[in-house]
């Protein structure tokens, strides 16, 4: 009896496989290798968000640890839903409204891609979910700039609106086949995995928000100590691991370009970390764990736009440059006195700009040759530098202006900045009614 039902089951499965194979015959065949790697990458990029939650969460005071972690986790909920509803369509649909963003009714709630296989041999669901993770992490990065002092309700509204009107259009311009930055110059602005779309836009928006909302109480006179640097280091480690999905997954394949991006990512992260350690060691006399983690991030951010076009020596130099410039940017921040609490601009904004601009000097020759061929005549480093500078400027200006407008409106309606009483009591108690380390109390 048991055997019989098993046999039946197997034959049913076989029948199903065969029949679905017949239906799929007229569409693109699935490239299982590429699909497997893209599935892995999708999971890896999602892993970066709890990683970011831990990185940021460890850096704030005890009373704000959960509130800060929730800034990242809330983005996983809100942006995932928005991405499926409208985000994918706004980003990868054909341009509308003069190219402001895209729209394809088939992508609305992803209802038209149920059986769609892309030319790369990857089911479109996988590509859509992979891109959705980028949309999640970008607003979560901004939260570092105004940590420890914003109302949860206002934050939730802010990231939803920001995701729709800042992230989606920018991603459309840079990554959609009819986006205007994608088609700039000979072979488009180079932004392999989101230097402009993710890091510059998040960093600049964070800077604008931090200045608009003002500093935390007591900043900079009161020392604000991280509650748990162990958590921060674990978070930085998860970010490094997850970044392989972020960069190497952005090749949307499983082959040579994946390997090139993966290698560049590892080299830049290591070079960034080493550089930060050396600078701190010489400047402060001690190499801090947080400094090492900051160096990892600076290197990773800088190589993000470049991972597809630079060779290992170029990635190494980008990592070194990113750490040097970001270190100086944070010194400068301390002089200027604005409260970019967890250095969202100092690392992501500045590192992203360094990467997107400086990458032109390390582009592999084959890419330049292809660009020249596409252009029809000579295409020099300086031509590409102009394209990169324009893309970076567009990202900075658009993110800054839109963020200012969104924050102004959200602040008027929901009161973005915490009241003094809420801020003193801590985000955990004021907005979540919990404590992060409550279990440590005898109970």
């Amino acid at each position: 009896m048991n055997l019989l039902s098993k046999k039946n089951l197997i034959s049913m499965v076989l029948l199903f496989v065969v029949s679905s194979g017949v239906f799929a015959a007229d569409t693109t065949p699935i490239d299982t290798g590429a699909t497997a790697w893209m599935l892995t990458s999708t999971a890896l990029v999602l892993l970066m968000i709890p990683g970011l939650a831990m990185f940021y969460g460890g850096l704030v005071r005890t009373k704000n640890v959960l509130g800060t972690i929730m800034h990242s986790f809330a983005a996983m909920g809100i942006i995932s839903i928005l991405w499926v509803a409208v985000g994918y369509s706004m980003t990868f649909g054909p341009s509308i409204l003069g190219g402001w963003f895209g729209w394809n009714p088939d992508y609305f709630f992803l209802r038209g891609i149920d059986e769609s296989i892309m030319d790369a041999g990857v089911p479109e669901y996988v590509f859509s979910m992979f891109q959705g993770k980028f949309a999640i992490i970008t607003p979560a990065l901004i939260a570092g700039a105004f940590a420890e002092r914003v109302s949860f309700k206002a934050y939730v509204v802010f990231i939803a609106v920001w995701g729709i009107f800042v992230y989606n259009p920018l991603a459309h311009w840079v990554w959609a086949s009819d986006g205007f930055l994608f088609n700039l110059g000979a072979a488009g602005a180079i932004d392999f995995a989101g230097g402009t779309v993710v890091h510059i836009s998040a960093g600049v928006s964070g800077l604008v928000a931090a200045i608009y909302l003002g500093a935390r109480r007591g900043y900079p006179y009161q020392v604000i100590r991280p509650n748990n640097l162990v958590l921060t280091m674990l978070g930085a480690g998860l970010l490094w691991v997850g970044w392989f999905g972020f960069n190497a997954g952005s090749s949307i394949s499983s082959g040579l370009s994946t390997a090139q991006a993966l290698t560049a990512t590892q080299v830049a992260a290591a070079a960034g970390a080493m550089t930060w350690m050396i600078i701190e060691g010489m400047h402060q006399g001690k190499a801090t764990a947080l400094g090492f983690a900051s160096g990892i991030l600076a290197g990773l951010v800088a190589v993000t736009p470049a991972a597809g076009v630079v060779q290992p020596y170029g990635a190494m130099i980008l990592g070194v440059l990113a750490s040097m410039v970001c270190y100086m940017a944070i010194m400068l921040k301390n002089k200027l006195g604005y409260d970019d609490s967890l250095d969202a601009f100092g690392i992501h904004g500045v590192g992203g700009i360094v990467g997107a601009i400086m990458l032109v000097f390390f582009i592999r020759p084959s890419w330049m040759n292809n660009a020249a061929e596409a252009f029809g005549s000579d295409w020099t480093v300086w031509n590409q530098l102009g394209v990169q500078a324009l893309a970076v400027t567009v990202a900075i200006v658009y993110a800054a202006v839109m963020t200012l407008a969104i924050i102004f409106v959200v602040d008027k309606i929901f009161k973005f900045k915490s009241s003094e009483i809420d801020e003193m009591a801590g985000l955990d108690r004021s907005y979540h009614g919990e404590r992060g380390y409550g279990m440590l109390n005898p109970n």
Partner: protein
Amino acid sequence: MKLITAIIREAQLDQVREALIEADIKRISVSRVSGHGQQRIEEMYRGQVIVPDLIPKIKIEIAVNEEFVDITIDTIIKSARTDGPDGKVGDGKIFITPLEEVIRIRTGERGGKAI
């Protein structure tokens, strides 16, 4: 000399500290404690309201010379009270005990000037 020990709400720590600093009382020790009082607090865990049987509180210890006792007490009372001027169950308590001796380790000074 007196040792003033105040048990206050966790959420009032910043208010009390800032008020004390304002009143020029800058040498304090702070610790986390938990205990029983009249207060029952409710917390949310996974959407469920629970009542922990030991309530977390903050303990502040301040050693002062006699002339600072009243201002210290007034400052703590004013800044640790919640829910308007009448206060609320759970705002805490202040204990005052005589202090026999104070010694600054660095210099070996004793008494009022070592505080």
